[in-house]
């Protein structure tokens, strides 16, 4: 069997396995085994990919597998990966793994919880391996829908409202996406050819520019909604705030990345001309996202809201980078996705663990936690520092690559936008330090906190996995960056063929 198909098969088998379990202990064990296998498989994939590339395989996608599914519509089950998807798969593997351990004590309807969680993961993995727009869209929706149950059943606060809002807004996004994908399909080849959903095939031809102009906004905004594009981001704060820990982790950590990845892989890759024409609108929106999210975060009091707004800011940077449309910025976008995925998952994991102890997420009700739960405190500080872009952590690498890529444009508009985006690093520092200060530092504000226990083994495992990811990328980014860099060659070649008007 093709190694990529395993990425879908293993979760499905895990789900099937959980169906036969009886209680929390069994179901979490099965999930843990399944997702550990998945993590190992991700690592193997990275290794195989790198060795294959070093062996000189220059194909745009590796490990491809193609099976005709609906011959009448030429829908294929087509999978394949390049450096970008490999990186995203590895990210997903890590986050899902950490997510399982972060929900080790999910007592209520535990079987159903793990099933939904892993279904979500299946969707994400499937999305990243897909080369066929149809299956991509299929997996996209598979990934979105379990969110409703996960938030609605196991969430907190106004969970029904948040779950509904999140689901509907994301489905609204897929309405746009559907138009975009179908439009691409019907213009995928010059008149008379066999229509195709295959991304690589479509990329060989140029979609007529009038259609691109029409379809690009649909596709980009469609994916952008999932990527928390301003002003369509409002599902994110509510959704994250209500979601249970592992769900927030997965959602912010990997699901939102579907937006950025899709915007890049579909919107920009297939419709570069229109992207080039219309980028300015979205650059304005994303620059706003970046700064606006950060300012929004300053004012919040709920830890999850803070992190949700910070996600808006960071994911805004992903889309911002994608729109810059050069190799460096694309690389930066991917690294930022991975970096943000790990960081935000770590944040949400920690928030969940802290909430599990203090039973509040309001920062002004907490204080001095560093003294009682030093492990979580230290990891929180690490996450915070990573989030504000400290060198040595992944966030720095990502942001710098993005900024340099964006600044590569010589015109004033792009440069001003870049500087606006760059300024977010200060605002980020403000809110991160505010949280760290109020939450962890200072005297202990509540005497109940004196008896809190520090992290358990599974919590340590969950957080340390993510910390390792963050620091590893932060310290030695070259392999990742080069892996992505190389994979961008086809799109860069395609971009180079565009006639740039007036430039």
């Amino acid at each position, binding site marked *: 069997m093709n190694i990529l198909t395993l990425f879908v098969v293993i979760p499905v088998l895990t789900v099937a396995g959980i169906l036969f379990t009886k209680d929390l202990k069994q179901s979490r064990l099965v999930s843990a085994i399944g997702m550990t296998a998945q993590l190992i498989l991700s690592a193997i994939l990275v290794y195989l990919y790198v060795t294959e590339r070093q062996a000189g395989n220059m194909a745009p996608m590796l490990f491809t597998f193609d099976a005709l599914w609906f011959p009448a519509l030429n829908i294929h089950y087509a999978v394949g990966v390049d450096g970008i998807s490999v990186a995203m798969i590895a990210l997903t593997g890590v986050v899902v793994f950490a997510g399982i351990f972060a929900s080790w004590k999910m007592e209520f309807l535990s079987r159903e919880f793990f099933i939904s969680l892993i279904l979500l993961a299946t969707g994400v993995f499937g999305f990243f391996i897909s080369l066929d727009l149809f299956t991509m869209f299929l997996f996209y929706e598979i990934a979105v829908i379990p969110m409703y149950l996960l938030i609605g059943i196991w969430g907190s606060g106004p969970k029904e409202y948040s779950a509904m809002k999140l689901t509907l807004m994301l489905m609204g996004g897929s309405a746009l996406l559907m138009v975009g994908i179908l439009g691409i399909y019907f213009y995928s080849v010059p008149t008379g050819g066999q229509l195709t959903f295959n991304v690589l095939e479509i990329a060989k031809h140029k979609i007529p520019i009038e259609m691109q102009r029409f379809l690009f906004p649909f596709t980009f905004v469609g994916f952008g909604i999932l990527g928390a594009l301003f002003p369509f981001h409002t599902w994110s704060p509510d959704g994250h705030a209500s979601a249970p820990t592992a769900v927030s982790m997965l959602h912010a950590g990997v699901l939102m990345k579907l937006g950025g990845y899709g915007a890049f892989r579909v919107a920009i890759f297939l419709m570069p001309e229109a992207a080039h024409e219309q980028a300015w609108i979205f650059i304005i929106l994303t620059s706003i996202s970046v700064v606006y999210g950060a300012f929004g975060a300053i*004012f919040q009091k709920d830890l999850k809201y803070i992190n949700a707004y910070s996600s808006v800011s960071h994911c805004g940077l992903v889309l911002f980078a994608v729109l810059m449309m050069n190799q460096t910025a694309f690389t930066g976008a991917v690294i930022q996705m991975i970096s943000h995925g790990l960081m935000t998952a770590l944040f949400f994991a920690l928030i969940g663990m802290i909430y599990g102890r203090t039973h509040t997420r309001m920062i002004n009700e907490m204080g001095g936690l560093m003294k009682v739960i030093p492990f979580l405190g230290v990891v929180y500080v690490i996450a915070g520092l990573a989030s504000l872009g*400290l060198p*040595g952590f992944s966030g720095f690498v990502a942001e710098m690559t993005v900024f*340099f890529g964006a600044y590569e444009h010589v015109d004033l508009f792009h440069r001003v936008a870049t500087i606006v985006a760059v300024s977010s690093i200060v605002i980020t520092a403000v809110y991160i330090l505010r949280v760290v200060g109020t939450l962890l530092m*200072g005297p202990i504000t509540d005497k109940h906190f004196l008896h809190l226990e520090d992290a358990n083994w599974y919590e340590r495992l969950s957080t340390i996995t993510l910390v390792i990811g963050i620091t590893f990328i932060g310290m030695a980014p070259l392999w990742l960056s080069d892996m992505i860099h190389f994979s961008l060659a086809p799109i860069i070649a395609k971009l180079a063929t565009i006639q740039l008007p007036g430039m």
Partner: protein
Amino acid sequence: MNSYAYTLLIPLIPFFVFVSVGMAEDKLKGKLGGLIGTAGLGIATFLSYFTAFKYFISDHVAGTGYTSVKAFEITWLHLTDKLTINLGVLIDPISVMMLVVITTVSFMVHIYSLGYMEGERGFARFYAFLSLFSFSMLGLVLATNLFQMYIFWELVGVSSFLLIGYYYEKPSAFSAAKKAFIVTRFADLGFLIGILILSFNTGTFDFKELTNPHGIAIASMGGAAFMGLSVITWALIFIFIGGAGKSAMFPLHIWLPDAMEGPTPVSALIHAATMVVAGVYLVARLFPVYSQTGPAALQVVAWVGAFTSLFAAVIATTQTDIKRVLAFSTMSQIGYMMLSLGVSKYGGEDGLGFMASNFHLFTHAMFKALLFLGAGAVIHAVHSNDMNDMGGLRKYLPITHITFLIACLTIAGIPPFSGFFSKDEILSAAFESNKILFGIEYFVAGLTAFYMFRLYYNIFWGHDRHYHHTPHEAPLVMTVPLMILAFGSIFSGFLPFHNLVTSDGLAFESHIDWMIAIPSILVGVLGIAVATIMYKKENALPDKVAASFSFFYRWAFKKFYVDEFYMFVTKKIIFNYISRPVAWFDRHIVDGTMNGIANLIVFVSFNIKGLQSGRVQQYAFVFVGGVVAMVLIFVYVL
């Protein structure tokens, strides 16, 4: 690889100490963590001295200039086609000098802290952070390129943050740490923008390429003008903003006084001797670029330096917290260094200011570290920072007293202490360049002597206060570093800096210009004299003076309300008028629109229910109406 490859170990040893001590923090009993840290830094110090010896003396061919050597370099990240971030070790006169400064002071602080921090909760953590700082700072000075410098620049920022916030349970300590981080972060934004502009115009980060005065990189600078200044000038000004933030230049200085919340050894290491001079080092590093392509930027550097030195000195005369006095004094002295760089030119004797700046950096590191550690010993003895709680301590703390006095004399510029020599060079450089700046600096020299001796007398003279227990001299681990640093303060002035650290690497002749030196000594003596009159014995004079300048005194005492201004801008304006509206806008307008759409749908849904009236005849009516409508559409529309 070359014969300097081992220098890689100098930053790496503290790094490994940081990782190992940091990981095993709670397992390290007693002073073990501290000892590991100190030992590690001892090795690094030894290697640094060895490097200095090797570079300046053994490897040096007489009569030639010092060239820079890339001891080690790896690619860390590819950014664009041209720009690659490398990490490496660059050996040249200023980096070697900085190595010596950093390792010396850091080593002293490590030893000192064994005594000072004894029994503190998180003793090992303290040493882990110290090692992290040493690593970052060494990485910074050894940077082969601008971006590496930025990376370590951020890292020193965070280690400073961690160390200031060491007493994290004290809200004031953490807020000081936060302030330091955010202010420097803001400045780093400027640095980053500067890097962006500079690197895209020159196509390189590498210092060797950038600063080669005959290289392509400098030649390619120029570029379009923006608001009357060339793009490169703007880039350099932005980069200087970064430096100004780290070096606490006005108006980005507000974090430094608060940073004194950290443990005193930290203040000595970071906020006096090493990190705060990073800005100076940055400008010195890029000095050829500044002097060749951005004279306007250098002007900015000079004036900011001069103003800060005056501004800080004035404030220092009014403060009562001894560490804050020292902090303002640091600002003032760094102002000197900046000024000196600002007035310098490139090459030969014109580069006097450059040399003087580095010289002063070196001597200042010694005496300021000494001052801080001395202050630490005092605080250790009386458990207070406020000079009103001190007095007559010379009997109890003899060693501290003597070393402190030496340091005060040094900073006051009294020969033959080192401060005299370095300050004299700066004044000479300023004299040759700009008489106004020179005048300011003269005045500041006097002020410096005054406030330092005000401090000195307030601590060690006057009558005893009510101490909780009798103050006692610090243990030997603390006094030995004091003595070593005192030794350095006295004799480092005799180092032949004009042969070693110059703008173009070539030695030049330098001598003391007595026409400048004698008035400067006199000014220093005058300052000391005034301080002696006012503070040696308690009398009413200081209050009278304060009263007669009450308005001015109050402003100076309140640090000219700069903090309050920032507070106003951040808390009131940004928080209230940007962040709060953004949050409101997000909840009510953006989210409101989304919810509004949903509510609208529900509203419509509720209001059209009458259509389904339950009456079959109405249904039929709608049915027939539908038919008619379709007919009409077919007839009139299609």
